């Protein structure tokens, strides 16, 4: 069923070029993500997780291969893809409402309906009554929720989550995971989460893709069991079958770490 393929990466490689030379960041990635699927990228630092996300968002152009969304090649960022960053980057000179409306304003779609939708979104994310306040008056968790509203306001069909929970306190992080998961599911969006946190990846996604480094490549894919996919992350974490998924990921990454450090040691001896 080709119409269900939301995102396709076809033999994608990316090379960073600067004054010091050219380095291969990700190598020959082939990946298909179905519409409505929630996928996580995990892996050691330097495995190209964020590079992949930037390629999908259109911030970078692949050196080779192609990135297709709905069968069309991605050439530049668009509001069809929403992107959440690790920090909220709310503009301190704009009120909460103005921050949430930013995407609509920039893409010239700030109509009455748009403004009403932003209002509804803020209500939905339990931010009602903060519209006329400024970001510095809000807590970290609230600010990240405003950033979520800003991303959702343009009604993207795909959400790219670039470690959006990693700067938050544990309990706020867990609550926000649930909130984000539910908002995404309610809208039937396709989502990709990049994270360092294996438990988070296992709890939130239908499929976890483990990446290896030097250069970035797909090591393996761990599918979440059916019974874990339809329940929110907080419940998933408490589910009896969760531990098995987590441990599988853990051992894979552990293995990867050992492999790399061995390689580095050997490289060191040769040098």
């Amino acid at each position, binding site marked *: 069923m080709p119409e269900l393929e939301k995102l396709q990466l076809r033999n994608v490689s990316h090379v960073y070029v600067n004054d010091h030379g050219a380095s291969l960041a990700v190598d020959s990635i082939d990946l298909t993500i179905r519409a409505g699927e929630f996928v996580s990228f995990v892996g050691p630092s330097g495995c190209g997780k964020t590079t992949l996300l930037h390629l999908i968002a259109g911030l970078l152009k692949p050196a080779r291969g192609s990135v297709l969304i709905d069968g069309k090649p991605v050439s530049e960022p668009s*509001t069809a893809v929403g992107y959440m960053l690790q920090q909220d980057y709310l503009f*301190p*000179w704009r009120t909460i409402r103005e921050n949430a409306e930013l*995407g609509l*304003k*920039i*893409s010239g779609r700030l109509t009455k309906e748009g403004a009403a939708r932003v209002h509804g979104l803020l209500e939905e994310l339990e931010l009602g009554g903060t519209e006329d306040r*400024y970001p510095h008056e809000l807590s970290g968790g609230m600010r990240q929720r405003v950033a979520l509203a800003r991303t959702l306001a343009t009604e993207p069909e795909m959400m790219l989550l670039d470690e959006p929970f990693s700067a938050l306190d544990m309990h706020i992080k867990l609550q926000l995971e649930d909130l984000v998961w539910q908002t995404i599911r309610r809208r039937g969006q396709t989502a990709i989460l990049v994270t360092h946190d294996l438990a988070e990846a296992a709890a939130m996604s239908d499929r976890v893709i483990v990446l290896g480094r030097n250069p970035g490549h797909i090591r393996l894919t761990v599918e979440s069991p059916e019974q874990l996919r339809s329940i929110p992350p907080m419940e998933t974490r408490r589910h009896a079958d969760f531990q098995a998924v987590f441990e599988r990921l853990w051992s894979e990454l552990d293995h990867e770490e050992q492999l790399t450090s061995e390689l580095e040691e050997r490289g060191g001896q040769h040098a």
Partner: protein
Amino acid sequence: MDSMLDDSNEQRSVHTSASSDWIKPLYTEHQKRTRRRTTAVFVVRTVLLILFIGLWEAAGRNKWIDPLLFSFPSRIMNLLGDMVRDGTIWSHVGMTVGETIGGFILGTALGTLIAALLWLFPFVSRVLDPYLVVLNSMPKVALGPIFIVVLGPGFLSIVVTTLSVTVIITTLNIYNQFREVEEGYIKVVRLFGASRLRTFWYVIVPASFPVIISTLKVNVGLSWVGVIVGEFLVAKLGLGYLIIYGFQVFNFTLVLASLFVIAIVATIMYQLVSILEHRLTGRRRER
């Protein structure tokens, strides 16, 4: 309020209310100490001023210093009083203040505009970089004579002399600020598909706004330098002209009186810009 926020505070400070009587005096004591210190500062300041003026006056009257060169306060005040009474002072003050305001507003605007072009066109910025460095280190008031020949002796060449002092430094300061805007904010708008021009309007300008305003403050001071030098060179009116005239007729009382007026007007202007800055940027705070 918000269910996601007000956790964790439940068992906070149960027993502060029971015996908090000893806390309040600490605060009162602190307030008293602060007030005492403020009073002391004020008193010492005033004494210093009175001593300075008193000594100067005594030294001048008793000829410890040459009164022809250094004059003394009462003489200066008398002269100022005369000039206020016959009204000649106002045209001089008006002229100089007009030139200064024109200079610093135009200078800030032009500098910001050039900085904007440099940011919008990185190629231009790379091309111009060494020229800006040279221009910045050069004493540009030295160009004054050329301006006078080209633009004629008068208001225009004085304002342009002032601009020569302010524009380059403004450009460099603001352009550097533009480049220091955090990458994350730029990424946010780029992800919404914003062009470079839109990025400039939505992120770069508002993020740099406080710096642009504080550049205004720096430019007040620089503009005074430009205006006074300009008036030295050409003017027939203005406080700078009064200084140079006083020097030519060896009337140093007039020189010092003009300097005194400049000090007052410049301070007032600086304070006004400070108030403006506070008005415009007071509401915003960084994270």
